[in-house]
């Protein structure tokens, strides 16, 4: 379509498709016929039946739409991106983060800040890790880039808080050690796909 057609503002010269609405009655007799037809069609009662049917569905067949929100919650998708969780290794209970800094690098709103150091075993240790949730746009890049599935998005979507600093420390996001058995694996971006085993191939070494 050329620009010319867009610039044509003259209504009626374009190609409109008209709906078939029947003829508007002009003579008195035709108008009278239309009134009688509409009166004795049972359209009004169909409308009544629809609302009554919905009432029966809601009351007797359990099709009520209402979710009493603070008391009932709908299940959310595993791919939902809410406040981050920091996961632990199931065997040792140590946190999974290796301090590689990829999440800090990839974060497009620059909200992740981390400091690392070497501990006495010469392993990287996270000394400071915060996410500024005033800036975070919950894009999910940090979870996707994380090589250890250490930072993931959790299901906590009720994020109203008295302080901006809430949720944002490493310890707040880390799975509590006594609830390690309740820790759920993340299914969202960056997670291993359910058919990962089928996709494993030999490493193509012979280029």
């Amino acid at each position, binding site marked *: 379509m050329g620009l010319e057609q867009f610039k044509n503002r003259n209504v009626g010269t374009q190609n409109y498709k008209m709906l078939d609405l029947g003829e508007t009655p002009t003579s008195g007799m035709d108008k009278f016929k239309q009134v009688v037809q509409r009166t004795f069609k049972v359209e009004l009662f169909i409308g*009544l039946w629809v609302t009554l049917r919905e*009432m029966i*569905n*809601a009351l007797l067949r359990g099709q*009520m739409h*209402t979710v*009493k929100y603070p008391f009932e919650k709908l299940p959310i998708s595993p791919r939902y991106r809410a406040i981050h969780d920091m996961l632990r290794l199931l065997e040792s209970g140590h946190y999974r983060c290796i301090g590689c800094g990829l999440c800090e690098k990839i974060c497009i709103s620059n909200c992740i800040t981390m400091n690392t150091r070497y501990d006495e075993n010469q392993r990287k240790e996270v000394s400071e890790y915060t996410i500024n949730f005033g800036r975070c746009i919950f894009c999910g890049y940090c979870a996707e880039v994380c090589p250890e599935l250490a930072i993931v998005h959790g299901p906590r979507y009720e994020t109203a808080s008295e302080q901006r600093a809430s949720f944002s420390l490493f310890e707040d996001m880390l799975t509590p050690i006594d609830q390690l058995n309740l820790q759920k694996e993340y299914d969202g971006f960056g997670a291993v796909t359910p058919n990962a085993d089928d996709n494993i191939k030999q490493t193509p070494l012979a280029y």
Partner: protein
Amino acid sequence: MEIVTYTTVETFVNHLPEVTWVGSLIKAVLILAVISAIAGFGTFIERKVLAFMQRRLGPMHVGPYGLLQLAADGIKLFTKEDIVPQNANKLIFMIAPAITAATAFIALSAVPVFPDFTIPKFIPVLGGTFVPSIASDLNIGILFVLGMMAAGLYGPLLAGMSQANKWGIIGAARTAIQFLSYEVVTGLSILAPIMLVGSLSFVDFNNAQAGGIGSWLIWQQPVAFVLFLIAGFAETNRTPFDLLEHEAEVVSGYATEYSGMRWGMFFIGEYANMITISVIAAIVFLGGYSEGGLGWLTIILKVGFFFFLMLWVRAAWPHVRPDQLMWLCWKVLMPIAVINVVITGIVMMV
């Protein structure tokens, strides 16, 4: 309250005890208490039924299943500030809601709401008092009730005109339109049953249909029944004809500037009118409380059905334009009503 005398006593059952002024007073208090309670409860029922028809739950949190929502609403209405707008005509603005509420209850004084009964002897002071089915059994009962309900529309009319608000003015104009439209249909449609029964008293109507379902007037006057129902919907401002305060068009129409208890009085008047229309339809066309012994139950069921029908229709149907209402009433319903009256007359003569 004046002492009531039966002018149609020969048609009334003769062995009934005499109606004393105490009995009439008890009945009046009974009607006032029960109907205002039901009118309040009706708002709860309406919200619940509309919610169910849209597959929602409605009020749920105040009390079990939201039953105490009524109390919460009442407290809110009673304690809200009574605002009178600056340029309003203060006197008329303040008495207009009282007109709606008062006429609604005055109309109920001539309507048989429950069957008659005698207070048992063992109750002190009042024992043995005969409480009639009607607070005052006028011989022009139907005329009086319809007239009072028509006078009730002065409430919205004066309220809309006095409040110095353009939405109120539009609401008042629509009140006038509605008033001019339905009143003719109400009168003419109910004229045919009146001709058949030969009386304007509700008690006579009730007694004329005492022969079971087969003797209900709806079988002889189906057209009049439908016409009366349509006009009744217009009379109570229910949904297909709720022009006066249709939110989507005129904010709240005549009630725009009202708040607190004055607005609540409009509301109570509207629901009392709904009950009145339901009772009239039940007594004139559906046999009233004439089933011996079970009359109190059947009248409640019939009135409940009509009340539910009003809510049901509100959930299902869109509303009409003011000009469509006038067109409907004057060009369609009134000719049908006249033809119905003429045919009824011919059948009665032949």
